[in-house]
């Protein structure tokens, strides 16, 4: 029996019944959404990755929590209505009649368009703000970053001041090294950082593409040869962390890790100064190339001219790694 064949009093009764159920459905959806939001915010949020070790990690944790709270009503609405239609609109045994014809519903269509538009706009605005406010959100912004972390650019770094610490991250198959231009350009295999200090990472590579991923710091930036990829963060807690490569780069890609530590500013200063002094005494600082934002490993100007001119050792212009990189000996 179609709806047209239902007597008017019955149709009115059915409409009131549907309206009541709709309001119950909306009330249940609101209650569940509120409960889910509270659980996400107070129970899940504090434990969400990547934690809150740095400003960028803290923002990422906040972003995930907000997006989860934004998504919860949507998924709850879908499942709630799915359950509702399974129960209410199921075919009863022996009922072989057609379903109710649908001729469109302006209210439903308007709600759908306005609702989805609002969600997309909200995600756009929130995502944009959360990219700008934390100065790139810990991601590599390329050589000319648009959003910069506040901090004084200084030739040396002093604890307690608002000095930006510059750290160059150098990837090569299959190891990370870290160069500190404010400490004489000393280099280290461990990434030590001071707490409560704005940090600029200059990420580059000496060979193939790697990806600098300090998960707990909430920092991730591709390391491309001859490219200075800049990322920012500020550590908020002391403690150890691990750096991994996040770009498949050869046989030891999975082992291309290194250790890092966030420490007090005073301890960091002592460590960096000690490494600088040791590398100066050992002649390492003098052996390193002058600090630059990128390095071309095919050019070794320091190589003695006498050796440059010896066939079989280097090419004539002082470039060792030619296009063959290097060619078969």
């Amino acid at each position: 029996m179609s709806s047209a064949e239902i007597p008017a009093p019955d149709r009115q009764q059915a409409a009131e019944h549907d309206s009541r159920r709709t309001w119950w459905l909306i009330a249940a959806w609101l209650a569940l959404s509120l409960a889910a939001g509270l659980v996400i915010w107070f129970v899940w949020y504090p434990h969400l990755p990547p934690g809150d070790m740095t400003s960028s990690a803290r923002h990422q944790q906040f972003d995930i929590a907000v997006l989860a709270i934004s998504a919860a009503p949507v998924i709850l609405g879908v499942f709630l209505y799915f359950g509702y239609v399974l129960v209410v609109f199921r075919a009863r045994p022996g009922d072989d009649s057609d379903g109710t014809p649908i001729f469109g519903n302006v209210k439903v269509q308007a709600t759908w368009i306005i609702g989805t538009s609002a969600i997309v706009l909200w995600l756009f605005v929130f995502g944009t703000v959360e990219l700008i406010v934390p100065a790139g959100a810990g991601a590599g912004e390329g050589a000319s970053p648009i959003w910069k972390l506040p901090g004084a650019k200084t030739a040396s770094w002093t604890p307690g001041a608002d000095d930006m610490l510059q750290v160059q991250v150098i990837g090569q198959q299959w190891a990370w090294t870290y160069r500190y231009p404010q400490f004489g350009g000393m280099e280290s295999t461990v990434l030590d950082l001071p707490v409560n200090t704005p940090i600029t990472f200059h990420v580059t590579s000496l060979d193939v593409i790697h990806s600098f991923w300090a998960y707990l710091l909430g920092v991730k930036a591709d390391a491309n040869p001859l490219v200075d990829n800049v990322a920012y963060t500020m550590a908020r807690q002391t403690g150890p962390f691990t750096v991994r490569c996040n770009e498949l780069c050869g046989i030891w890609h999975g082992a291309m890790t290194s250790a890092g530590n966030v420490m007090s500013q005073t301890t960091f200063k002592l460590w960096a100064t000690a490494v600088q002094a040791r590398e100066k005494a050992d002649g390492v600082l003098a052996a390193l190339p002058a600090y630059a934002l990128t390095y071309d490993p095919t050019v070794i100007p320091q190589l003695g001219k006498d050796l440059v001119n010896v066939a079989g050792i280097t090419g004539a212009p002082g470039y060792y790694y030619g296009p063959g990189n290097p060619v078969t000996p």
Partner: protein
Amino acid sequence: MSVTARAAVLIVAFLCVVGVVVFVALYYIGSASQLPTVAYKASDGQVHVVLQEDPGNNSTTTPSWVTYYTQDPTTKQWLHTTLFSVPADTRVDVTIYGYDGCTPLRNNYWGQVQGTLGRVVTVRQFDKNNHPLGSPVTTSLINSWAHCSVGHTFAIPDLGIYVPVASPNAQNSVNNLCGTFPCTPTSGGAYAVETFSFISPSKTGSYRWQCLIPCGGGFLNGNGGPMQTLGWMAGFMDVVAT
């Protein structure tokens, strides 16, 4: 064809594909495990690991690949492997014969000796006639850019050990590299001998080691071929219980 027959064909075909994949995987794993592991035993609380790196090798498939060899401590034979074991918590004295010519480090930072006792290595170079070129030199840095004096490196990153391995004197070794592999001091090539020591970790396990010079000649960025293959410029040091 009946449904049953079609299902049977499908199952057989699927099993064939699975069989081929398993065979290839086992073949690959089996090939890798054919590398012998040289076991170094402690004597008087220390072990003596002896390696050499050559500009070529005695294989029939890839004779132009640079490679490490490991010396069997009992027979003194050179084995074409980069797998060796040492006892835990023991002083490990390493001798590396460098027969390959110099290659500048991509990052000269790796010229710094790290992780060895005293943070030093001792180096002595010899000419092709096996005559020493000066006295042994103990140093914490081999500047490959100033003298082109590093052939390869020996690095165990998990232990913080990074050692530049000296090459023969650059001027002296041009066109004078050993040509018969594995090389010996009397095989007619200039070479260098480098020694250093470190303490093996107390935690047993496999520790990878590698070269940090892109010495895979002819491959993209020099990091293919021997650089990506166990038994050549990469290997494992197994630390075993004493």
